[in-house]
């Protein structure tokens, strides 16, 4: 919680925080619109980050939905500056929780036939495997290929390095906000980020040349 304390001190006590202290823990229409704008701004990127970490579309939708609900339910009365680190902290907690559960499931049920099937190993919908008759643009192909390599490289990062890189580089959070979202010190964020860059540089070197 030290990250949020420093974030709050930096942002100052907003009027909404004061009203929360008075027990007026409710949202008016303008605040709901503000929350709508915030969620609309982060939902796509959050989904892609979750999809990249979990490699499962349904799981990614689930963790994003839970993060949205938790933010709206428990933290909507916080200041707007706090929403982004809070949202991503909830999101990464959900991702870690799902990864842990999948790990346990693999450990106990991995010997069952078909238990180790993964979305990127086996296509979930046979219709999606049917080639499109329309010619695919080269640009689209290049983007898909680049994203596939980035996805793969990101997925191979340790969890904390993935969080540091996705928050700092892909989401554009500064070091303090990233530390708040990861619930660690700023020095730890820098260390994880540096190691993530090193790992990605090695992983993507061949692809980019």
């Amino acid at each position: 919680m030290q990250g949020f304390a420093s974030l709050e001190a930096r942002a100052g006590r907003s009027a909404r925080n004061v009203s929360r202290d008075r027990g007026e823990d409710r949202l008016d229409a303008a605040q709901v619109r503000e929350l709508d704008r915030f969620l609309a701004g982060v939902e796509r990127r959050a989904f892609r980050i979750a999809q990249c970490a979990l490699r499962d579309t349904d799981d990614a939708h689930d963790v994003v939905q839970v993060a949205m609900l938790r933010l709206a339910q428990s933290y909507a009365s916080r200041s707007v500056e706090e929403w982004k680190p809070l949202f991503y902290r909830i999101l990464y907690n959900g991702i870690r929780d799902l990864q842990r559960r999948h790990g346990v499931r693999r450990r106990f049920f991995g010997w069952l036939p078909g238990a180790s099937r993964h979305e990127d190993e086996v296509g979930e919908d046979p219709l999606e495997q049917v080639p499109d008759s329309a010619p695919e643009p080269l640009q689209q192909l290049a983007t898909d290929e680049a994203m596939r390599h980035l996805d793969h490289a990101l997925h191979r990062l340790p969890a904390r390095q993935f969080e540091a890189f996705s928050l700092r580089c892909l989401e554009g959070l500064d070091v303090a906000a990233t530390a708040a979202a990861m619930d660690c010190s700023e020095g730890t964020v820098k260390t994880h980020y540096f190691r993530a860059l090193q790992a990605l540089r090695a992983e993507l070197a061949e692809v980019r040349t």
Partner: protein
Amino acid sequence: MRLQPDDRDDAELERHARNVFQASVDELDAATLSRLNRSRQQALAVAEGRSRTGWRWTVWTPVGALAAGVLAAVLLLNLPTETGAPAQVAATATSADVQPGPLELLVAGEDLDLAAEADLEFYAWVELETAGYDDGVG
């Protein structure tokens, strides 16, 4: 400040990752966007619902407390006594202007005892008065 080769590599890597990631975000299909939109609407509904619940709670708390107090008072006044009659009836039954009905006389055993004592005096007097007379029946 001149950038070192590693720094240039890192900057290039960051730019590349950002561009590729942003392109993949921009290319999300309609079904995914629709599902994300539904999730967002649900979250907003929760926020709005919680807001309304909070308003109701603060406004209706004193009203609820008052209603509960009135209900408790009514229940206490109508609490049955040992004789089975409501406390309100038992309290007012001793006043002279309230006449008990036949059912209440039957139910109240003490009243029947009092009536029997009065009748005993009457029957004793009738017996004394009629002791020397023959009724002529046989």
